[in-house]
């Protein structure tokens, strides 16, 4: 019996203690007509050896291509130590630190995580994690509505340059909350949100505004101006950022005059593998002023009976297990282990290491742009500046090009036509520090080849 330790004798002794004659008897309160028959879609058990063989075969099917896709999930080097330590049984197989005295490891780690994320975002505080960036954005919007008591409109401005899946998740999650999500148009030339586009909203009651940096196109937004504009409307500013980029780009807490009120995003770039989309984690930081509106767990530093420092869950009255229907969110289980890995990752990078890594992403992206735009008909879709993603316009349909590139084992990027009808010929390409010059050359040759094939 895989995983079940009982011997025949154990079972007999236990049944005797209970005073029944078979395990079956223990189910005698269940109406017989409800009892399930045999499972038909669950095959016979495989041993670990056979399972691993199957999984190796399946993994190999998907493996091997050079990946230039970003669009919310980024390939970075993860130090071997990060997951070696994170998967230690004591971290991996513990649960939520309800018994603080027996969970100081996890608790102190999360306190350190909160500290690191707060400083990286230049914000006062961070929570212990939300599910991912997209659902995190929804929680940030809900929080802004709770926190901005003076605003009555429940209106949130969301630029069209925000990740399309984030926007749809946001819609799905806040759907029942009577919140008005207003899309702000983006500028086709710069691929960013211009102050002009906000003109119509000036003077209105705006509850909050989302500002992405870099935005979905990889373009840098004028976050200072946007933040100041939003604050002038008494809106709360939600900075949606790539945390890796914050090692070199100005962080939400320092945007404009007063800084963003909430910073949110996906922590995946910080030591979490791409893994088909998860587990990642949503990080969320905010100013002290509104911490009591934060969703998710918070760890505080305190002292024990002897006055010794220790760590514990705090402000639990915001949470569902205490406040039930009045909680700030229904979140319970969060993304602890991914946070554990990220914390170790950040400690192994330090401020300079992280800046160098982010810088290498930027440089490599510039280098690829140079290479690819040397191919006739390939051009940067937008003016302005990028971090490590860039929209390139191709002399062919992006979907066709990407398919042909994949046949050459190059995953060339994200087809922007899927989300923006005006961008059918545009591909969103990402280059991180993991790519070498020869990788870029492989991409270039493959693309030239594909375009020749498609366009003759």
């Amino acid at each position, binding site marked *: 019996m895989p995983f079940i330790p009982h011997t025949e004798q154990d079972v007999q002794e236990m049944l005797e203690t209970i005073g029944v004659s078979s395990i079956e008897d223990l189910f005698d309160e269940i109406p017989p007509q409800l009892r399930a028959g045999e499972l038909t879609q669950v095959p016979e058990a495989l041993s670990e050896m056979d399972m691993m063989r199957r999984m190796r075969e399946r993994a190999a099917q998907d493996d091997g291509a050079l990946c230039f896709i970003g669009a919310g999930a980024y390939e970075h080097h993860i130090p071997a130590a990060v997951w070696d330590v994170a998967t230690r049984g004591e971290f991996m197989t513990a649960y939520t630190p309800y018994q603080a005295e027996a969970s100081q490891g996890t608790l102190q780690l999360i306190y350190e995580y909160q500290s690191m994320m707060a400083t990286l975002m230049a914000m006062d505080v961070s929570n212990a*994690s939300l599910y991912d960036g997209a659902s995190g954005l929804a929680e940030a919007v809900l929080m802004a509505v709770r926190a901005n008591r003076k605003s009555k409109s429940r209106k949130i401005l969301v630029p069209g340059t925000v*990740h399309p899946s984030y926007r749809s998740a946001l819609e799905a999650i806040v759907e029942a909350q009577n919140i008005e999500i207003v899309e702000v148009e983006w500028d086709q030339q710069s691929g960013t949100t211009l102050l002009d586009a906000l003109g119509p909203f000036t003077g209105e009651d705006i509850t909050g505004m989302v500002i992405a940096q870099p935005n979905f196109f990889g373009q840098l937004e004028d976050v200072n101006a946007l933040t100041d504009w939003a604050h002038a409307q008494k809106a709360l500013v939600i900075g949606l950022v790539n945390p890796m980029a914050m090692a070199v780009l100005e962080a939400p807490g320092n945007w404009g005059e007063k800084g963003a009120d909430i910073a949110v995003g*996906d922590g995946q770039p910080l030591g979490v593998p791409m893994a088909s989309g998860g*587990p990642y984690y949503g990080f969320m930081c905010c100013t002290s002023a509104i911490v009591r509106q934060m969703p998710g767990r918070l760890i505080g*530093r305190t002292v024990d009976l002897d006055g010794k420092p220790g760590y514990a869950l705090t402000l639990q009255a915001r949470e569902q297990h205490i406040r039930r229907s009045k909680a700030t969110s229904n979140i319970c289980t*969060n993304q602890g282990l991914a946070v554990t890995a990220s914390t170790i990752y950040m400690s192994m990078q330090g401020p*300079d290491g992280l800046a*160098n890594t982010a810088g290498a992403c*930027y440089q490599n992206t510039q280098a690829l742009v140079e290479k690819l735009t040397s191919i006739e008909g390939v051009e940067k879709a937008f003016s302005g500046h990028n971090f490590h993603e860039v929209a390139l316009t191709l002399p062919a349909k992006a979907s066709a090009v990407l398919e042909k590139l994949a046949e050459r084992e190059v995953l060339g990027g994200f087809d922007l036509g899927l989300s923006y009808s005006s961008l059918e010929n545009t591909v969103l390409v990402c280059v991180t520090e993991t790519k070498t010059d020869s990788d870029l050359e492989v991409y270039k040759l493959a693309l030239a080849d594909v375009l020749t094939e498609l366009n003759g």
Partner: protein
Amino acid sequence: MLIFEQSRSGRKATAQSPAAAADLSGLPEAFIRKEKPALPEVSELQAIRHYTNLSRKNFSIDTQFYPLGSCTMKYNPRGALAAATLPGILNRHPLAPESHSQGFLSCMYELQEMLKDVTGMKGVSLTPMAGAQGEFAGVAMIRAYHQARNDDARTEILVPSAAHGTNPATAVMCGFKVREVPVNSDGDVDVDALKTLVGPQTAGIMMTNPSTCGVFERQIEEIAQVIHDVGGLLYYDGANLNAILGKVKPGDMGFDVMHMNLHKTFATPHGGGGPGAGPVAVGERLLPYLPTPIVGKEGSDDAPSYRWLTDKDIPETIGNLSAFMGNAGILIRAYVYAVMLGKGGMHRVGEYATLNANYMAKQLEKAGFQLAYPDRRATHEFIITLSKQTKDYGVNAMDVAKRLLDYNLHAPTTYFPLLVPECHLIEPTETESKEAMDEYIAAMASILKEAETDADMVRGAPYTQPVKRLDDVKAARELDLAWKA
């Protein structure tokens, strides 16, 4: 000591990042960060030593018996970790083209099919990232269902008083009002009271069965009838599925929609608080509303091909709840667990989980503890109430829980469900041996003696942990949520 306190400015003892700073002069000043973040500057060895030592301050399944009720702290097979970290799986980009995803998609598809089978449902979406998000998806589907029928009057969700906090919190997130349904002294829902609560305003009911009282809701069929009769739907909170896995299918009990906690029933690790996965399963009526994406299968069984189903395939979907497909890596682990368990193993889970809980309940009762529902069968978990000990010795449920830590045993869930005073909710799971349980029973007996003879000592516990009891009031009053230099 905090990692920050080990930091020294300029320490760069790492092979983990490019040695040189990049040239950022192409970027305008306005975009550039002015002040470095105060991340720690430590060596690789310091980081490893620090976090290795931190880990040693945790209790965990791998090191202790951990009978945390409602959480199903069962053995997390290491083989699942090995499979989930195969390079082809770990490094797959979520937006990789289907041509480069058939291996992964086939696993997800098979998992969907297995989950349909064990739940007795018609459709599954794997995307919710934990139980609570599964609840959200489920209740949002109930909402979508009524909306599609223009049945706008349905503004209430019923929740038994014993329910987990996520249930009412979720109902509110989905725009409903919450009405509590009372529970009888035998742990079953008060059906008469229920009948007075339902009506055209009833969108549905959220139930856990076995309930959080650790007993099987015997009138479930009648309850289903009552709810369905008034046009409501039944939501099944699958947190306790471990109790009946392979024995009873929620779909057969009349539930219309449910979530599973794969980090409980399917043995994926709890990770110090997560990540989990909370797939939703639905009956016929809610199929059109499943959250996206879902994996579809095409072609013959011999040469199948798999593809993502999105809002183009499921136009009435409640939408996507995350950027990609949820916690894929956890889903892989759950798939692997199911594959290693197989049909036979799947049938055994509920049996042995139930055997263990009933054994512990009986032994603790013999040892002098009071069961909350002494006339009921325990399911996979059970409740004792320490009201008597609290009254007699001034030693309450929390004191006993803390004292257990000194016996190197993790405490059970305490003070939940709220309706049983001074309670311990104890869930051994099927993967624990009789010896482990006997050790726990002996510790409880010993603590009972200690309470009689030295209550002060018990109230001061624990004594053997890295810290003694912590000042929670100070933590909340003098908020210190981030280290400052």
